[in-house]
C-alpha cells in the first residue's frame, strides 16, 4: 500500500470541497481513483467510464508518465508519487 498525492484540477474541485490535492493510499491508479470516488460523490462519474477506464477527455499522470503509456488503471504507484488529473483541452472554430 503506497501513499500518494492526487492533484485535483480546478473544474473538479467543487467535488473535493475545494481541495487542490488529496492524500490517498493504494497500490494502483485505479484503486486510488475508486477510493476518491467513494470519498467524493460524483468524482468517478467525471473521470471514469463504468469505473473501468479513464474517460477519453481526461488525462491521468503518475509523476510525468501518462498512464495510457503505462498500464492504464493498473499502473502501480509508489509512496511519494504524485498523480495528476488533467482535463483534455481542445476545441476550435
Amino acid at each position: 500500500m503506497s501513499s500518494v498525492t492526487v492533484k485535483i484540477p480546478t473544474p473538479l474541485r467543487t467535488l473535493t470541497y475545494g481541495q487542490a490535492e488529496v492524500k490517498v493510499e493504494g497500490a494502483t491508479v485505479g484503486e486510488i481513483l475508486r477510493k476518491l470516488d467513494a470519498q467524493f460523490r460524483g468524482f468517478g462519474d467525471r473521470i471514469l467510464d463504468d469505473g473501468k477506464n479513464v474517460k477519453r477527455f481526461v488525462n491521468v499522470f503518475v509523476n510525468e508518465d501518462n498512464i495510457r503509456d503505462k498500464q492504464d488503471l493498473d499502473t502501480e504507484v509508489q509512496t511519494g508519487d504524485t498523480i495528476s488529473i488533467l482535463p483534455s483541452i481542445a476545441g476550435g472554430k
Partner: protein
Amino acid sequence: MITIPTSLLRQIYDHTEASYPYECCGLMIGTMGQDKTVHAFRRCKNLNTVRANHRYDMDPLYMLRVEREFESSPWDIIGIYHSHPDHPSRPSQTDTDRGWPDYSYVIISVQQGTVAGAQSWVLDEGQRKFDEEPLITGDSK
C-alpha cells in the same frame, strides 16, 4: 468577470497573430474566486497539426508542467485562451463539446492576421452552453 492586465493580453494577442492562419492555444494562470485575475500565461503547443487552421489540441504534458511550475505559488490554472482565425470570438460547437466548467475560455478573433476582438466564456455544464463573462483589461493592482 476576468481581469487580464493590458501587457499580458497584448502578449497573448502577439501569440495569436504570430500563429495566424493557424489556431494557437495557451494557459492563463492566476487567482480564482468570484472574479478571476490573470497574473501569467504560458503558450502551449497545438498538437493538432493536421487541422491546425480550425482545431487545437493542447499538449497534456505541457499542461502538467505548467501546473507543476506554479504549484508552490498562490496561483492556479484558471483558464485557456485560443484563437479563431478569420472567425468570430464565439465558442463553436467543438468548443462547447470539449469545454470544462469553471475555467475561463478566452477566444480571440484574428482577422487577416490582426486581432479583431476577444471575449471570455464560462461553460454552464448543466445547460451545456457557454455564457459570456465580462473581460476587463487594465493594469494589475
